[in-house]
Each structure stands twice: as C-alpha cells, then as structure tokens.
C-alpha cells in the first residue's frame, strides 16, 4: 500500500517536472522567435568625427552634455527616445548602437549589423569634400555586406551638422556619394571578381549608380546633433522600430 502510494507520488512528480520543462522551453523558443522577428536595434555608423556620439546622446538624453571625444568603444543603450518620454502610454524602447568610426574599429560593425532593424549612416556635411571618398568607401562596404543585402536593412544617409551655414545640402551629398560609389563599383568589382561569397554587386550594371537601385531602401536626411534637430532620425527610427 505504502509502496503503491509512493509510486504514484513519484510518477506524478515526474509528470509535473516534464510539464514544467516543456512549458519553459516553449516559452523560451517563443521568446527567441519574437526577439528575432522584431529587432529593435538601430545602428549608427559613419566616419570618425561625423557626430554619431553626439547624436546618440541627443536621442537618449536630449542633450550632448559637455561634448565628446573620439570613441574607442561602441555606445549602446536601450531607451525610449527622449522626445517621446513625455508621451503617455507604453512605448517600446529602441536599442541604439553607436559604432566608432575610426577605421581600426570598423570590424565591430559586423557584430551589430546582424540584428539591425535599420542603419543610420552619418555624414559630416560641413567637412564633406575632404572626406567624401572615405565616406563613400565605408558606405560602399556597408551596402555590399551580405547581412545588409540579404536582410534588406534600410539605410538612412544622414547629413549632419546642418546648423552651420557652410554645410552642404543633402542633394549635393547624395549626388557626390553616388558618383564616388559608381567609381568604386568598377574598381572593387575588379578586385573581387572571384569572391562572390561576401560581396554583392551594387545597382544596375550598365547604368550609373543611384541609391534607388539598391535592394534595400536607402534614403537621405538632414540633422544637427549639436542643436538637437534630429526629427528625421527619429522618424526613421519609428518607421522601422514600431512603438
């Protein structure tokens, strides 16, 4: 009798344990799935000195604090955009990553691209011409990355520092970048003919390159991180990370 009772208890315990295990694993999987399909990561990239870190803190705190220096590590944060903090209701936070622009630190970008819902490519509109080629090369590298092409990560080319009157217009910058990328297309394709593995050819062959040719959506915007005029970035973020 006692033995029988014992057995019942044990089997019951086993069933309970199994059930708990089953539910947790299902929950876990669901959670993973949920996370994967709805990424809320926005990556800020661009050359060193283009104003990414200032932008990051504008998005987070609505202030650039006491200024910035060259970043050595990425800035990362999950937060409700500062401009939305006064809004009522529950707002989904955004995960923003500011990847340093120094070329030695660029490999870091790959770590974040795989989970990106959108990428903001910040361009210094003030000091644009001397950096035009370098910026185009960086942008080209991003636009041809497998992770960007396959997932069709939307890209916003953000012309920053428009508070200064000598800043170039976004149309000018777009045209210059298109021109440079067009040239890069020939030289880069030549270098990497045989290596199809990670490179994708950009645009339509036989036509001069335009951002509208990209498989992913590439748009151009303006901002001034310094004075806090960042509505176009916020709009971009909200387009791709639904609140």
């Amino acid at each position: 009798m006692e033995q029988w009772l014992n057995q019942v208890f044990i089997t019951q315990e086993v069933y309970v344990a199994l059930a708990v295990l089953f539910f947790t694993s299902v929950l876990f999987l669901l959670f993973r799935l949920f996370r994967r399909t709805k990424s809320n990561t926005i990556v800020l990239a661009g050359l060193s000195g283009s104003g990414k870190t200032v932008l990051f803190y504008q998005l987070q705190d609505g202030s650039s604090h006491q200024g910035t220096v060259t970043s050595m590590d990425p800035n990362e944060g999950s937060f409700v955009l500062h401009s939305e903090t006064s809004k009522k209701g529950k707002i989904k936070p955004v995960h923003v990553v500011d990847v340093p622009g120094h070329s030695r630190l660029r490999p870091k970008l790959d770590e974040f691209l795989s989970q990106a819902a959108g990428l903001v490519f910040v361009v210094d509109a003030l000091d644009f011409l001397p950096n035009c080629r370098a910026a185009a090369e960086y942008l080209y590298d991003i636009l041809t990355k497998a992770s960007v092409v396959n997932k069709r990560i939307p890209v916003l080319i953000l012309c920053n520092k428009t508070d200064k009157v000598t800043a170039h217009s976004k149309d000018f910058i777009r045209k210059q970048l298109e021109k440079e990328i067009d040239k890069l297309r020939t030289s880069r394709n030549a270098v990497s003919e045989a290596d199809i593995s990670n490179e994708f050819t950009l645009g339509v062959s036989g036509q001069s390159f335009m951002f509208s040719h990209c498989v992913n959506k590439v748009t151009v915007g303006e901002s001034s991180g310094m004075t806090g005029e960042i509505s176009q970035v916020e709009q971009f973020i909200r387009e791709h990370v639904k609140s």
Partner: protein
Amino acid sequence: MLEQLLIFTRGGLILWTCKELGNALKGSPIDALIRSCLLEERSGDSAFNYDAAGASYTLKWTFHNELGLIFVAIYQRILHLLYVDDLLSMVKREFSELYHPKRTYYEDFDDIFRQLQKEAEARAEEMKKSKPQAKPVESLTKKEGQIANKKKGVLLAGKEKVSSKDDASEGNHTNGHKLENGNSNGRELGTKTTHADVKKSVPESGAFDVSKLRKLRSKASKKMDTFSKAPKVEQNKKTTKKNRVWDDSPSESKLDFTDPMAEKGTEAVVVVDQGESMMDREEIVSSDSEIDEDEEESGKPDNKKRGWFSSMFQSIAGKTVLEKSDLEPALKALKDRLMTKNVAEEIAEKLCESVAASLEGKKLGSFTRISSTVQAAMEEALLRILTPKRSVDILREVHAAKEQGKPYVVVFVGVNGVGKSTNLAKVAYWLLQHNISVMMAACDTFRSGAVEQLRTHACRLQIPIFEKGYEKDPAVVAKEAIQEASRNHSDVVLVDTAGRMQDNEPLMRALSKLINLNGPDLVLFVGEALVGNDAVDQLSKFNQKLADLSTSSSPMLIDGILLTKFDTIDDKVGAALSMVYISGAPVMFVGCGQSYTDLKKLNVKSIVKTLLK
C-alpha cells in the same frame, strides 16, 4: 600649471573637465592621443606629445577599465610637471567613487579636484625639498642601474637617465625612444620608468595607503627584473643580426632574372599569360584551421600560486579584480607565443603592455579564466592593429589619378635581396589584368644587372620600360620616367629602386631625394616575411631617414607594405604584425610564390588566428 584635465568614457562622452583651468586647448590633442596612441596599442607608454600651431603639450593618462573611464591630463611640455601621475591616480580613485553609469554631470567633483590638486602640488614640493632624505632608496636603484648600464645598449640609455636622476625632465628623452609610428602626429615617450621612481621618494603622507605602497614596491622590483634581463636581450639581438645573410638568389626561381647572362636568351621571350592574379581570388593567406580554445588553454601554465580549487571557486564566483600580477603569467605566455610566431620582441612586449593597461582593474566575469580574458583582449588588439586605416584599394586610386590626367606613381623601396623587382613585376601583371597601362622605371642604377633584370620582366609582360642605364641619379631618372608616362598616357608608373641597408646614409639620402622630388602616390616598402627583430629596425629607420632627410614640412613616409616570400614561412607570420605596428601602414600585397599570379591580399582575420595559435 596643468592645462586641462578631462574624464571621459571609452564611448567618447566627456564626463568632467576642470572649468577653472578652462583655457581652450589648441588643436585637438585628445583626439590625437586617442587616434595615434591609444588606438594604436601604445597605451602602455607613459606620455604622449602633441604639437599644434603655437602649442606643444604633453599628455598623460590612466584607465579605469572596470568602469570604462579614461583620465587625461594635459600640460605644456616645457613645464615638466612632476605631480601629474600622482594626481591622475588620485583623481581616478576619487572619481570612481562618485561615478554612476547613468550620471553625466559631476559638479560635485570640482571641489574634490581642487583639493586633490593642492595635495599633489604640495607633495611634489615636499619631495623636491626632502630629496636628501630619500637618498638611500635612490642610491640603491642607482647602483643597480649602473651595473646594468655597462652592458646596456643605446636603447635603454634614455630610460636609464630617467631613473637615476629623479627630477629628470621626461620631455628630453624622446631620443631614447625607438619605436615610432611614422604616421602619428605626436611622438610618444619611453616606458613607464619615471613613474615608480618619482613616487618612491615621496615621503609617506596621509594620502598614501598601504596597498598603494605595496604596489609601488612590486613595480620597482619588477623594473629591476627587466634591468637584469635586458643585457641578455641585447646580446641575442646582436647575434641574430650577425648571422643574418641576405639571400640574394632564391633557389630555382622562375622569376629571377638577376643574371645578366640570361639576357642573351631573350630572343625567345614568350609573352606571358599565366591567368588570373591571385589578388583577385578569395585568398586565405595562411592555414585557416580553427583554434580549439580548450586545448590551448590546457597547455598554458596557470597561476601556480593559487590552488586549483580556489581558482575554480573564484571563476565560479566571478568578480575578481584583475591586478597586474594576475595578468603577468598569461601575458608572459602570450608574449612567448607571439615571439615563436616571429613577432619582434619589442613589439610583443609593447602589445602586452597595452593589453595589460586595458585589463588592469577589470572584474573577471564568472566562468572566465584569466588566460582566456587576456587572449580575447589580445585578439581584439591584433585585429585593430592589422585593420588598415587607409584605403588599400589601389585600383580606385589609380582611376582617381587617371581622371586628373596624372600617372599614378608607386615607388618600391626596401633592403637588398627582398624581391623588389620580382614583386614589382607581379604588381604590374595584376594591374595589366585590370586594363591599366603600366610603365616600369628602372631606377636601380646602383646594382649591376638590375636594369636588365627589370627589362626581362618588361619584355615578358610586354610593357614599356624607362631606363637610362647606370651611374645616373635615380631621382632624375624617375622624374623623366614620370614625364614620359604622362606623354604616352600610361596610367601607372612602377619605380624600382636599389635595395639599401637602412644604415647606409648616402643611399638613404638618395632615396629621400627621389621621393621628395617626385612626390609618388604610394611608397611601398618591400619586406621579407622572414625577418624577425630586424623588421622593426628596417622600417623604423627607413621612416626615420625619410622624415629626417626630407626638406618639406610634411615628409612622405612609407604608406604601404608588400610582404614577400610569404609562402616560405609556414605559421611564422609575425613580420606582418611587426611591420604594420611600427609603421602604421597596411600590408597591401603579399607575394607568395614564383609566378606572376602569386600576389595576394592579406587576410587579416586568418593572420590574427595564426598569431594566437
């Protein structure tokens, strides 16, 4: 007076600056420090010099690795402030008490800082006065120093001065500094020696706690260690140098046309098409086998002092603060491993110092070992160093030059017998394949047979060659060649120069003249992948001479590296690292065989893997 003191995060946000000192800095010394020192794995250095119009600053820094903070002090170089190191470490200690990741303003630190600065200045004053009192300790170091001094070479002489004279001005010792990144704006000084000495003679005031003293002591004894080791190192270096034989004739070389006799047979010249240059294939330069983490760790000497159980316990509990002494065994092992891969000793040392600086004070996570933490940090550092900071897309640059209607000029430089001409031909072949018209300029007017050798390559590749025989000024030959190229619309001019030893003053002067006169678009240093410690000497001297002998204010230095004989070195890929570290220039090509197609790009990731294997 201090010019400024800043506290900022590794992410780049300034948390605190001293408003009282608030004078505007000239130029951007902080950005320069970060870009050309901290990000170049030179954070183990003791100071960084920055020159801008109307200002010459010295910068000192310290890290708080656990919190990810950086403290930087800036002062006018002529002032030789002695209390800066002391002040920085005090500031670090006090500020980390206040720090909170969410906080971005620290007005309350203003008062604390004022107090700390006063204290530090007072201590420095006191130290000056009480110098005789501190004599006993000092004389001991002196003696140690003198013994070592007798056997020591030039390299350590600069450091020695600092340690024996304790009010020595750091600024004067740039000459003792051998490692130099040619591309950096400022210059860095020697290693941390002043540090310990200055502090040692400080009388024990209230602000000093016991742990600090202990640290100081261990630092001092460590320094003596390095002193006693130093002579051995020097000897080693000398012997390797003596034994070095420049192999002028690689065995059974298909591409070697050094022998002028071969020239007679040129009637049977065949136009070559050996297919696609390897530059265009997805290349894996070295074997790409995966590293087995566990396997390599088991082979590493663990921290012997702590028992297996306690270290296990600590690794589970996590959160042990890493101290320099904890890191040492792992770093030593790593340094040795790098050296077995043929990385120059100086550079392995510097890298380890930099990694130590980036880890000291960090908390060890749960289930992580010190050795794997160190390994990961080193891997990141290596990846950073080897990632090019300038574009290596030569074709793009060639096209850009073409648009401006100018030929793109590449000058190949290097020591004797490294394969300059052969690899020049490979580059020519690769360019030809991309429909770029190439011209060769035979500016090796020094070694007999050099022109013929190049002519043979030119014939085989069917490209024009510009030659003026021997006994001509190579600078002038190059100039004429470039003029000729503009006339016949060649896209690229490849200039072959005579191989020269880095110590040969007249030849280096000639090279400097060639480069200054012609302003090439790319100065490519051709170096053997086989070299070990000599790589540092070659490249730093080349850069040094080019800088010194130049007449212009912004001299042209080496801006790219071509590594030859890469197929002969197996996993000893260290020269790539040494050369890139010392010059800051990227490896643009890798020569890996005897046929025209044997030219590759460097695969940075696989090099890093091989180095740490």
